[in-house]
Structure formats: structure tokens, C-alpha cells
């Protein structure tokens, strides 16, 4: 966490405490061929929020997550984390991919512990920490299994455990359930909500990208709608329904209608 803090002056610390977890200021992203794909986007995410980003393909949803985590840089504007400008990969974040991104030659335990190697932890500590998150996502028993032996749902649990193991404050998820069938996806959504609501983890803020309106309302405290070419945020809906949310409740369907009407 120290990489985004650099002074001990009380004024700076106070400013940091008052600052939101994440702030995007007028960010834009263009590719080297000058095609402008994203922005300008301004956005404030407070600690503890579950933010869902929804929009058509090509709206730059994935690019937005990559700029937030620092995997890609912005062309203009600023990404602020707790009030500090982030250059390079933000170590307080982790990203879960739709494609799972597991290494086929490593077993579950090794895949999960991998991210900790880069953080300079010794092997016993890596494995004990990895085991904790493997248990949390319901993967104990699978430690020695290889990705090829796992169903899509189990592979994504590995992806989730690997992201949580680095204990990020902010977890970014790029369509994590869209490669899965409806039952497996629903099971994993429940699991994610259970973990997040139990407050047993360092990670308390989540930004999740999806193309499913229903998923957005099931999960989010807030749903951001994006439009394409270039990708911008066109609406910001608070979702205040009680949890656990019931798809069949009138309030749920009302919200569903409201969002659908804005997308079409």
C-alpha cells in the first residue's frame, strides 16, 4: 500500500483520508493509430461500493477496467487512488478475467499462489495464504487438480481465489460469469456476494463489468451505463433493493424495465 503514499505530512494524510478510493478525472484513451476509444470519463468510487458497469460490446468496458487497475495507461486525464495519481499497475487492485487466465501446467494451489511470488512472499506464507482463499471460494479438495480437470465454474473459482489472495482493496472483474451456463453463473454470483457481504476479506470494493442487465441489478449498489464509440458513461443508477435480491420481486422488475428502456 505504500507505493501510493509518499509523505508523512499531516495535511497530505488528511487529504488522503478524505479522498475517495478511486477517482477518474476526464480520462481518455486512444490507440496509437489515434482511434479514440474511451472517454472523456469522470467517475468517483467510494470505499465499500459494488459498482457494475454495463454497456454494448465495443463500449470500452474492458479498457476502462484496465486503466483503473493500471494495466494500461490513459492518453489524457488522471486516475487517482485515495487522492494519489497512479502510474503503472496499482498494487491495491486485482483483475479477474472472463477467460480465467489459468496456467495449464500449474495445479490449483500453484495457480492461486502465483500472484504472491511477485510480491516477494516466502513459499510457506504463499501457500498458507493461498489455502485460506482456496477454502473461501469452496475449492478445498481441488488443490492438486489441474485446470484441464476442472469445469468452467471451478476454473473461475480459481481465478477469483487468485485475485483475492493478493488481498486487493479494489477487485475488478471483467465479465467473470459470461462464459458459464446459467446455473453455474448463478452459483458463482451467490458465492461472490457471500464473500463480499461477510466482510471477512480486505477487499471491500468491487467494480464488475457485464453485459447482463439482470446480473447488474442482482449485484450492484450502483449500475453505470456505457455507450460506445467512444466509450462514455451515460447514466449512473443507484440500486437500493434489499439483499438477497429476488428476481421475481416487483421492485426488481421495475428496475429491470427502467434500465432496459435506457439501453434500447
Amino acid at each position, binding site marked *: 500500500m505504500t507505493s501510493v503514499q509518499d509523505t508523512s505530512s499531516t495535511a497530505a494524510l488528511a487529504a488522503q483520508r478524505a479522498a475517495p478510493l478511486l477517482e477518474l478525472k476526464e480520462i481518455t484513451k486512444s490507440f496509437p493509430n489515434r482511434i479514440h476509444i474511451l472517454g472523456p470519463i469522470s467517475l468517483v468510487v467510494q470505499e465499500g461500493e459494488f459498482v457494475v458497469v454495463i454497456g454494448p460490446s465495443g463500449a470500452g468496458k474492458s479498457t476502462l477496467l484496465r486503466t483503473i487497475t493500471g494495466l494500461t495507461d490513459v492518453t489524457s486525464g488522471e486516475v487517482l487512488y485515495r487522492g494519489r495519481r497512479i502510474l503503472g499497475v496499482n498494487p491495491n487492485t486485482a483483475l479477474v478475467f472472463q477467460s480465467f487466465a489459468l496456467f495449464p501446467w500449474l495445479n490449483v494451489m500453484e495457480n492461486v499462489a502465483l500472484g504472491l511470488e511477485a510480491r516477494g512472499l516466502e513459499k510457506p506464507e504463499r501457500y498458507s495464504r493461498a489455502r485460506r482463499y482456496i477454502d473461501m471460494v469452496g475449492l478445498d479438495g481441488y488443490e492438486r487438480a489441474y485446470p484441464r480437470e476442472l469445469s468452467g465454474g471451478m476454473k473461475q473459482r480459481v481465478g477469483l481465489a487468485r485475485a483475492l489472495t493478493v488481498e486487493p482493496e479494489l477487485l475488478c472483474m471483467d465479465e467473470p460469469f459470461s462464459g458459464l*451456463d446459467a446455473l453455474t453463473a448463478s452459483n458463482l454470483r451467490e458465492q461472490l456476494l457471500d464473500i463480499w457481504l461477510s466482510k471477512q476479506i480486505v477487499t471491500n470494493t468491487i467494480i464488475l463489468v457485464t453485459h447482463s442487465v439482470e446480473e447488474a441489478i442482482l449485484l450492484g449498489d450502483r449500475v453505470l451505463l456505457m455507450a460506445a464509440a467512444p466509450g462514455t458513461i451515460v447514466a449512473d443508477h443507484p440500486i437500493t433493493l434489499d439483499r438477497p435480491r429476488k428476481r421475481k420481486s416487483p421492485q426488481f422488475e421495475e428496475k429491470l424495465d427502467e434500465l432496459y428502456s435506457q439501453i434500447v
Partner: protein
Amino acid sequence: MRKTKKPTAIPVLPNARIGSIVGLLETLNEQGTKIDIYKLSESLRFEHNELMPITEASDLLGFVKIESGDIELADLGRKVVDGDENAKKTIFREQMLQNVVLAKRIRSELESASDLRVGREVILEFLGSSFAPEESERQVRTVVDWARYAELFDYDPETDQFFLPEMAETA
């Protein structure tokens, strides 16, 4: 450890993954009442034959009640939905030992094996009396998936052996 036993038909293990089974139970729980299986597969955008193994597996494990084309959550299924991950695993373990012949067989082979390991071929031979080779492979894949989740036994793809994880860890 190979026994020459009179071959009896082994009940087929429906080829369903754990995540799908728990997902089905959660969906039925949200549903609240019984639902026509055909309608359910439509609402989930599943082909009927894709949903079948999942409903059959849930039935075999005692988690649902299926009657004249309708399915609903049984009390045990509700316990799975409401339980935390450890409670879920315990219920799966108990139900597998009670209702899944293949799981019982592998577990007892493991408990009586001198090194607590059993080769894949021993189990394939056991299955060979009831199934074609490719179905036997599918049965093994499914039982390994369930057993890992239930922490009943594990499988080492490097050596092609089943083993008891708690024993291996203390060894």
C-alpha cells in the same frame, strides 16, 4: 486389492458438475415452489438433455423431489443452499457415501490399500462390467469432481492414482 467379484450393474452417475448442482438448488430455492422441469430448462436457456443430468444428480443426492415432470427443493437441498461452504461439503460427503456406489467403492478400496492409493485402472476395471470404456472415463471424471468438492478423496493425474488427501498430507 483386486477382487474377483460377480459383476452387478453399477448405477450410472449423472454427468453433472458441482457448480451446476448447487446452482440448480439456489434457483429452485428462489423459485419457492415446484416447477415444471421443461419450463425450467427453457427459462435457463438449457436444452432439456443438458438439464437432465443436473436434475438427476440432485435427485440421486436427495436434494430435490421430482414427481410427474415437476421438480422442487427437498429439505436437504434447502440445507445445502442455506449452509456455508463447509456445511455444503459435509452434506455432499454424507450423501455420496450413502447414495453413490462408485464413490463408496473407491473410498473402501482406498481404505484397504496398503499405501492408501488406488490406480485408475483398478476402478476402470470395476466400471468395465457395467459401462463402455468412454462412459467409464466419464464416470471417473464426474466422481472425481464430486469427491474433490466433498473432500472424500482426491485424484493425482500425474500418477493416475486415487488417494486420501488427509493421509497424504500427514505422511
